[in-house]
């Protein structure tokens, strides 16, 4: 009984502290809005799509001009073919940020109507190993990296092979938009993407950037890649996912990076994992170290993580 009261007081104190932190974060993000709309990475003056998506998700419940100008920015820089570039002024080729922009626009109820074109672009785009010629090469000649080329996902940029993070984001975007625009083709690509993620897991659990084994050596998993891949695999109970969650729980202990911890909090929150409380406390601690929040992506992700952990809203949640 006494312990329970103590825990409630402790949680309330933490909650107030987090609310203050969230308010502070959101105010700082709004202050750093570019006059042209959106947010730049680092100290740059050119808005990038990735940064803007995170910040837009972080400010989803605010009603200031920053949120609206971010939506305008995303709609303005969208390419003719429905894809998104990496940043304002980039070549109009489209890249992995297309999935992230779709997730962000849906989350803030932007009233985005051009989704079919963007989904088509995502479905046309695939890792180069998905082509029969390269598939054959990876199966026969090039065995340096061990993976099954029948299971392919999405590249960072068209014309290259599949990688974990772009595949995970695209699987999330397709799952989220499936409710309104689902087709058999979308369902198939979602399954293929999920198969690819599981195929490329590291032997010890979790994910590196791409393959788990290169030249016979197991690669070390990364915290952020693992957390993002787990978001795409939510509500699944595959042994690979379970092993990845176990690895992530251990990797987060003592992790000093607010960027990695924010992604982990979002992943634990999505999976309703008991490690959430501990990871959340570590994020809180990391955010108070000024050097850890020097970049705007981290500030945005931290705000998303706080909201997700409090059960308010999680932009990466798949219904």
């Amino acid at each position, binding site marked *: 009984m006494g312990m329970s009261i103590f825990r409630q007081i402790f949680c309330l104190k933490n909650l107030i502290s987090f609310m203050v932190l969230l308010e502070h974060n959101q105010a700082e993000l709004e202050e750093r809005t570019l006059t042209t709309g959106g947010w730049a990475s680092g100290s740059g003056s050119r808005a990038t799509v990735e940064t803007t998506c995170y910040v837009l998700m972080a400010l989803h419940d605010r009603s200031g001009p920053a949120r609206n100008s971010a939506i305008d920015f995303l709609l303005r820089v969208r390419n003719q073919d429905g894809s998104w570039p990496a940043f304002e002024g980039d070549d109009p080729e489209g890249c992995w940020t297309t999935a992230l922009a779709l997730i962000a626009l849906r989350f803030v109820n932007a009233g985005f109507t051009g989704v079919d074109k963007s989904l088509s672009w995502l479905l046309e785009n695939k890792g180069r190993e998905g082509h029969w010629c390269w598939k054959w090469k990876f199966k026969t000649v090039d065995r340096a990296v061990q993976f099954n080329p029948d299971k392919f996902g999405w590249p960072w940029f068209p014309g290259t092979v599949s990688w974990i993070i772009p595949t995970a984001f695209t699987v999330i975007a397709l799952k989220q938009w499936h409710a309104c625009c689902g087709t058999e083709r979308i369902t198939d690509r979602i399954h293929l993407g999920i198969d690819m993620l599981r195929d490329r897991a590291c032997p010890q659990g979790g994910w590196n*950037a791409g393959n788990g084994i290169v030249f016979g050596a197991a690669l070390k998993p*990364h915290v952020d890649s693992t957390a993002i891949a787990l978001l795409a695999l939510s509500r699944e109970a595959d042994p690979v996912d379970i092993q990845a969650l176990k690895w992530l729980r251990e990797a987060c202990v003592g992790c000093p990076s*607010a*960027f990695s911890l924010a992604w982990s909090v979002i992943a634990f929150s999505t999976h309703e994992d008991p490690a959430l409380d501990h990871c959340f406390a570590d994020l809180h601690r990391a955010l108070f170290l000024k050097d850890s929040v020097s970049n705007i992506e981290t500030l945005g992700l931290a705000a998303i993580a706080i909201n997700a952990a409090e059960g308010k809203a999680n932009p990466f949640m798949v219904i």
Partner: protein
Amino acid sequence: MNRRDWLTASAAVTGSALTMRFQRRRYSRDFRPKISRIAILNADQYSDKLDQLLFDGLRLFHLDVRGKSVLLKPNIVECIPEKPVNTDAQLIGAAAEAFLRLDAASVIVGEGPGHHRDTDLLLHETGLGDQLAHRKIAFVDLNRDELIKTRLQANYSGLGNLWLPRTVLASDFIVSMPKVKTHHWTGVTLSLKNMFGIVPGCRYGWPKNVLHWAGIHESILDICATVRPRFVIADAIVAMEGDGPLNGSARYLKTVVLGDDPVAADSTLTRFMGIRPESVAHIREAGRFIGNLQQSVISELM
């Protein structure tokens, strides 16, 4: 002309066209100095003594860095315990200190790790974050810097242009600081290959897979022709041999190699490693226009 003659003539024309294509000059400028200079410094271990060692080593070159902005580009890839994967943090700190003592206007450390998106975490794990904070040296994550579309000064990859970080393009004096390693795809990873890390992940991915598909050797040549490192400080105190760049084993060379020509430095280092520099495609080709490959035009400073 009968059918045999026609086939022979066609084969000859095709062969000549292909030969011309491969022998065509693909660079716009010859950067090779008349004489390249290198210095080989002995260092048993990573310690505070590196500060003085590097300062004395740099003074041998009489470098004019007064009032200039210096960018140190180390090789920071992944933190794997017991594996000498990255340029040592203490050596980077010592280099920064040495350039400041030579009156550089500013010294910045910049890197765009190939696979790791969480650069803060990597800086923490490698000890570079603490090292730079202690010495009050700024770090720029080149993966997320502001970008400028830049026309490549050579045409090996066929890419034509690359978006490159403003920090790199605005620097007066770029120093490539590789970890001396073997590499399963390029043979070695030295000062030229190290420049791969200036290409921004936010535009080319993590890893920079666009460049892999355009050809690793070819991309290295195009990058180095466009942003030629002015100086090299190579970390060979503990090098890596075998299955590099991540899973090789430590090789104690106990040496830091300095050089005012990246090709001369790389060819010297490959010889050190028991590899013929001509057998590494990008070093061989770089010897035609980026710097000097032949020992006869490389002078060792003592």
